[in-house]
């Protein structure tokens, strides 16, 4: 399944910059960064449980926010991209 993760971290609060960094690293381990605070993660349900709990441990629940959008298995039809920074399709041939 594919989950779209977006986040807002209050970097002006104490330890904000550190939380931001840790969130983006945790997300990068499971998916690809499509915009600055937006990740698309294709993962198995078990991996999703892991990632979710990792993220929720990092954030400060009073000042930060996380949003998950569940795109399901057929996510390709639901995503359209325009402009710079096109995402890579992890099912297509990967040749660099």
């Amino acid at each position, binding site marked *: 399944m594919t989950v779209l993760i977006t986040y807002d971290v209050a970097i002006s609060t104490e330890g904000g910059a550190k939380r931001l960094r840790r969130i983006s690293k945790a997300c*990068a*381990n*499971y998916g690809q*960064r499509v915009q600055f605070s937006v990740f698309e993660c294709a993962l*198995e349900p078990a991996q999703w449980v892991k990632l979710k709990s990792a993220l929720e441990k990092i954030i400060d629940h009073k000042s930060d926010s996380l949003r998950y959008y569940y795109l399901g298995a057929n996510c390709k039809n639901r995503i359209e991209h325009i402009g710079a920074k096109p995402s890579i399709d992890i*099912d297509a*041939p*990967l*040749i*660099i």
Partner: protein
Amino acid sequence: MRKLLNTLYVSSQGAYLRKEGETVVVEVGGEKKLQLPIHTISSIVCFGNVMCSPFLMGFCAERSVAISFLSERGAFLASARGAVSGNVLLRREHYRKADDADSSLSIAINIVKAKLSNSLAVIHRAIRDHGAKINVNLLKDAANKIKRLIKTLSDAKDLDEVRGYEGEGSYEYFAVFDQLILEQKEDFVFNGRNRRPPLDNVNATLSFAYVILSHDLRSALESVGLDPQVGFLHRDRSGRHSLALDMMEEFRSVIADRLVLSLINRRQIAKKEFAKSASGAVTISDSGRKTILTEYQNRKQEEIFHPYIDEKVKIGQLFFIQANLLARHIRGDIDGYPPFFWR
């Protein structure tokens, strides 16, 4: 069914692969070109001057992601694997079966049967689809000869006899292979198989397709805990992945040869992608290799019905399924090794 994971091919010269967290990062000229979570790929293939950090290699070994290093032209150089792990009992049984003449013989017969019958499938398909354009009599003749070989194969008494039938079968098959090339005939002339180095465009493409196929089979065998070096049909030779070559026999014609034929017949690959060196060896250009890899990866996503496990699977999954069935046979769960027969 296990999900079919992607293979990362790196052919940019001077690229550097490293580990970052749980991800693989590809850098070219110091610039980050790609960052991928490790769980989305099952193997990495590097062409030419591509470097991998030792930490990435260790990480890949831990996650059983196979890394192969090939030369720019696609010749196998080395592969990296971690500490030997997996099921030691299975491996021991594998060696015992490989040493035992009767067990090796029955597995080898099954594999060669599938190989010949799958080459038949390629010929039959050409007759069916392009019967008007080609010399059907020639093809039917070869098909009948191969059919007879398949029948006599069951009575083979030793491995040398099996190898003899296999050789005869592939000779008959490659003797009519030129007939299956329908387009660009003047640029793609095929007069029998040659390799090391390949001397014409068709052979160069075939050789390249076989190399990428053997990488996939090697990693499939490793993932089920078999030793890819100990074969039944192919003899042990230091550095050779004999079992991967054994397993490849089932797939050569239907996956690699058909891929090459459709690339030529659909004009996806052309004469300008090939260069001949002074020694007569033919090499494929970067863009040509890219076309072959892309088409190969696309083909692996196509679905096919597997009669033995009675399920629809992706072509790329076939390697894992067959490796698994072989492991089950070696363990003694099933009586014979059921090879894959294309229909």
